[in-house]
């Protein structure tokens, strides 16, 4: 099992080594120690490997991840798993702003809380937050599923497109064009599947679903107050 100590070698060497891995590598499980809040740790991975990071990371950890599993045993800074394409990223602590921003696929699990703008402009990623999320989360969320076991801050889902937002706790307020929607059997099945993938035990019936009212999809003078 390869290990890498970021107190002894630079980040560039770690990321270069991880980028050099082929899809058939047998170095499939990496341990990274002493991240000490460094930025861009394990970003741009493109191989089915697991990278365990022992400690807190800075901005953009696991950014643009493809195929890999990245586990952060600590807190994550801004933009963890931003623009993730596939694979899984798990934060065992809390996540700062813009967690999973613009993510196109894969699964992001935050076992603590996530700050503002969680899932902003998400494009297909599934995000599960065991705690609560901050304001302006899922702003302009286009596709994918955001599942929150705790509460959501103000302006949830502002200007949302077709993403699904499942919240078990209280929502402080909804953003422009975001409404509560009736949960269909298909929605329940999607939620249950995401919870199962995340390894989270919770009843789908305890959640409420929020999504787009689709009133802002076209410019119209009657909606001028929303712009």
């Amino acid at each position, binding site marked *: 099992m390869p290990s890498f100590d970021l107190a002894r070698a630079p980040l560039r060497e770690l990321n270069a080594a991880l980028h050099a891995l082929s899809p058939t590598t047998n170095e499939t499980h990496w341990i990274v120690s002493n991240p000490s809040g460094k930025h861009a740790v394990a970003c741009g991975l493109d191989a089915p490997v697991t990278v365990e990071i022992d400690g807190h990371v800075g901005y953009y950890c696991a950014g643009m991840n493809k195929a890999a599993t990245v586990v952060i045993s600590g807190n994550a800074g801004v933009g963890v798993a931003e623009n993730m394409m596939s694979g899984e990223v798990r934060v065992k602590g809390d996540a700062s702003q813009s967690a999973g921003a613009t993510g196109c696929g894969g699964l992001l699990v935050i076992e603590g809380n996530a700050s503002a703008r969680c899932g902003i*402009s998400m494009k297909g990623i599934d995000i599960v937050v065991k705690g609560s999320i901050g304001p302006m989360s899922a702003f302009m969320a286009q596709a994918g599923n955001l599942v929150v076991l705790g509460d959501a801050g103000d302006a949830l889902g502002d200007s949302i497109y077709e993403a699904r937002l499942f919240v078990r706790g209280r929502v402080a307020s909804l953003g422009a064009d975001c409404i509560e929607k009736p949960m269909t059997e298909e929605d329940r099945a999607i939620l249950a599947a995401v919870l199962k993938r995340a390894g989270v035990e919770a009843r789908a019936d305890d959640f409420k679903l929020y999504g787009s009212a689709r009133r802002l999809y076209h410019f119209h003078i009657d909606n001028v107050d929303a712009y």
Partner: protein
Amino acid sequence: MSVPPHRTPPRFSATFNPNVIAEIQRAAATGIYDIRGGGAKRALPHFDDLLFLGASISRYPLEGYREKCGTDVTLGTRFARKPIKLKIPVTVAGMSFGSLSGPAKEALGRGASAAGTSTTTGDGGMTPEERGHSSILVYQYLPSRYGMNPDDLRKADAIEIVIGQGAKPGGGGMLLGQKISPRVAKMRTLPEGIDQRSACRHPDWTGPDDLEIKIEELREITDWEKPIYVKVGASRPYYDTALAAKSGADVIVLDGMQGGTAATQDVFIEHVGLPTLAAIRPAVQALQDLGLHRKLQLIVSGGIRTGADVAKALALGADAVSIGTAALIALGDNDPQWEAEYKKLGTTAGAYDDWQEGLDPAGITTQDPVLAARLDPVKAGRRLANYLSVLTLEAQTIARACGKSHLHNLEPEDLVALTIEAAAMAGVPLAGTNWIPGRDK
């Protein structure tokens, strides 16, 4: 009823002129602002207000066609492991597939490649056709992140982080429903046919300190190979240039308000930002103050039309220029051959700017497959290559006349201004004087 003699002839107001009246009437009828494509149409101080002095007793010219005048430029020499080498200092600016048709994007790639320069993606991702036909392709990283993915990031030759553009500094992109075709919708992960409004701020960073970290991430993902550009709309060019440089940019793209857009509110295009002429010297000054002029590269865009414009921008301190609107015109935009159809759209060749409607008779700013098929990408690419050659030859002609063996040897000392405004903005003397308004001496 008889008309009284000596009646005052109709007199239009300068304030409430026919265009203003028409816009008030349109606004009253629709209740929505006017949206259009292109850049500022109002008269602005521009490169036309500058003249080159040429050689004289104190300056030796170079022989035209005999003595070499270099045109090459290398972009990304500051940090990137693989800088871009261009034969000419004129690049093709970012324009999206979505705002432009597939054949138009292909033609831009063909023309730029034939001329030895780069083209640029836009707000909507990279198409295989575009990559395939562009020998050097710059991949834009925009607030919307439509179509953004690490595979295309690695396929690109450079990455351009777009903070803003000259037509709308502080505004996001816009693509109306008529142009959100199934393919465009899929690339952008959007429902088909909606009016798409892109974000104006990046979703995961705010301010120059964050930008520095974002650049570090992009460099790490691409193993420090790609030059990283930062594009800003001209508004506070001194500070924006200094902050982009501080954040670690390899190249700064500075876009003046004459620079075009696919679609934006007319009020935004005409009333926000700085003319290109006013933006260059502050940006160059910022680089000089940091000791970075010519160490990172400055690309200037917004209203570049001729080789004279190219030469003037370079003389003021730019390393290269970028063209957008002019490139579309070279492809065939606003071609009089489509006059009958322009008239049906209520306009005329030379004035057509409703690019947002997707009805472009020339097949360029459309997603209608029938209209798009009108543009032959091979012939249109050839026209663009021809035009780029003319820009280069014209700039060389001027540079040789000023005694310069490379376009980059042009300097402000070669220029004078025809107006006080242009003299102040460009920081060169008013013609026939040694007066630079705003300078101590």
